[in-house]
């Protein structure tokens, strides 16, 4: 927990300082001459709130009682599975514009369901096809969402 909090604090600190640095380069109120704060003020104010909270977080983390300091497991079989899932989805989004919704989604479902459910591949294929087609038809025809406009296979 301690480590996790400190990593979070570090990320927030970088973010806050970075935004203040960028936003202070934005035009000031005087540039507009209307007495209205410029575009940089609000992000700076919020970043200060963010930094203040980060400081409180660091303080409270350092004073944290040992029993509250539960360990965060980031490298177990479970989490590794999550990272792999994230990776698969990332690849899916990369190929989606080229393969089109139907093919890419069918393959995605096939991979996941076969991996998780370990059923007969034919049953997996049927379930995957069903999910893909139900979602596709509902959005394409009932809700009129153009899910067919990209990819090699456009119907």
């Amino acid at each position, binding site marked *: *927990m301690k480590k*996790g*909090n400190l990593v*979070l604090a570090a990320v*927030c600190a970088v*973010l806050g300082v970075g*935004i203040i640095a960028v936003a202070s380069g*934005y*035009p000031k109120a005087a540039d*507009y001459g*209307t*007495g*209205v*704060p*410029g*575009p940089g003020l*609000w*992000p700076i104010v*919020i*970043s200060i*709130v*963010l930094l203040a*909270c*980060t400081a*409180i*977080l660091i303080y*409270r983390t350092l004073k944290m009682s040992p029993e509250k300091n539960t360990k*965060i497991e980031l490298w*177990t079989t*479970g*989490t590794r*599975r*999550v990272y792999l*899932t*994230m990776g698969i*989805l*990332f690849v*899916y*989004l990369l190929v*989606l*514009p080229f393969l089109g*919704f139907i093919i890419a*989604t069918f393959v*995605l*479902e096939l991979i*996941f*369901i076969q991996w*998780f*459910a370990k059923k007969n591949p034919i049953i997996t294929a049927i*379930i995957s096809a069903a*999910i*893909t087609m139900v*979602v596709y038809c509902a*959005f394409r025809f009932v*809700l009129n*969402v*153009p*899910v067919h*406009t*990209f990819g090699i296979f456009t119907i």
Partner: protein
Amino acid sequence: MSLLAEIFTTSLTPMVFLYMAIGVLSGICIGALPGLTATMGVALLLPMTFGMDAAQGILMLLGIYCGAIYGGSISAVLLHTPGTPASAATAIDGYALSQKGEAGRALGTATLSSYIGGLVSVACLWLISPLLAKLALKFSSAEFFLLAVFGLCIIGNISGEDVEKGLICGSIGVLVACVGIDSVTSYIRFSPEGNYNFMGGINYIPIMIGLFAMSQAFENIESIFEEEEVQAKLTNILPRKEDLKKIIRIAPLTGLIGTFIGIIPGAGADIGSFVGYNVARSIAKEPELFGKGSVEAISGPEGGNNGVTGGAMIPMLTLGVPGDAVTAIMIGALTIQGLTPGPMLFSTNKVLVYTIFLGMFIANTLMCLFGFAGIRLFTKVLSVPKVILTPAIFVLCVIGSYAMKNSLFDVWVMLIAGVVGYFLAKVKVPTSPAILGLILGPMAEKNFRTALLKSGGDPSVFFGSVIAWFFIFLIVISLFGGKIKALLFKKKAI
């Protein structure tokens, strides 16, 4: 009495009932699907009303509206995926109850509270709409700013134990909302040169889908091969006596508050539900249960968001000013029929106006009936094995975030939000404050600066009206209410 007879003979025909039923049902489905909001549902089905007469068309749209605002709670409870932003607050406790195997209880509470909230708002619409309409005009930039700040104060109450973590998350939400063209000066902020995806600002619906649904799905993956211990028991669909007591205590009040939020142009069901949650927490019998699966915490936001529906109709019908995005589309629907909403409508089309009032009451009742009748059906979702449900959720997340703007960029935003949300949950950072920040941050900033623009830089505008002071009072109470209460009780003890 003759008016009532006229309504039933001329405009409230069986056909209208059928259209309303279709509207409510499709509304519930649209609301339950993540990424499809009430606004989208009404906009998508609007062309269907072109061929109907005015009463049929507007009542079908109303059915969709009420149904969608309620429908969002179904997926919020069952899948931790608010179907619409209006159910983001419901997801917190609804899902917690669902995990205890009490999905039926959570859904029953949501349904009944939505109904009560809807009824309260229809009553307001019917009885005092001309009076309330005047209130909408009193709101200007300064009041909007203070309303938004009050809304942001709610972060403290939905953050659980570590308030600073909630505030961190909320601040990040506000900062993300800053990306794109600044609406006061049209200066482009935090956006790569020439990238129009960033320029228009980052849409918060994909972020919401990512933070709630996607990160939840990732978490399910962690234990995907473990036996599911919690099977949803379908007891208590109809709320138990003690739950009923809590709902009756909370839902009418948050419904009333939701109505007022609805009246204010520019504040919609999403804000109504968060304010409802906050109010419920402050008057709850068991505030310590909030976040762990409390009936009161579901009743509050659900009463609040459905309260908005009637409230938003008030300025639309009486002033011709839309109370939120959905009613803005409804104005379009009415004008296509050759009717102009506004003060004239009450005198020239009295029958239609009262048909709308009565129809809204009926639409809410239909929503409640469908809701209770469907709970068994809805909860069947939970009996779908996780190994199949989770991959299906992935697809729904992808297509839901694409559907909003038909943009693949939004799908990337969703996936990144999902990954960030997963790690935030690991360090016990609550994610709902980010949604609050995304919705209210731009509202606060824009109105703060517009108010100063109008006053020529004079900050006294923020203290210039009764409404402004009312909100300042609320802000102080919500920030320091606990301490004041403690102080008072101490004095009494001595």
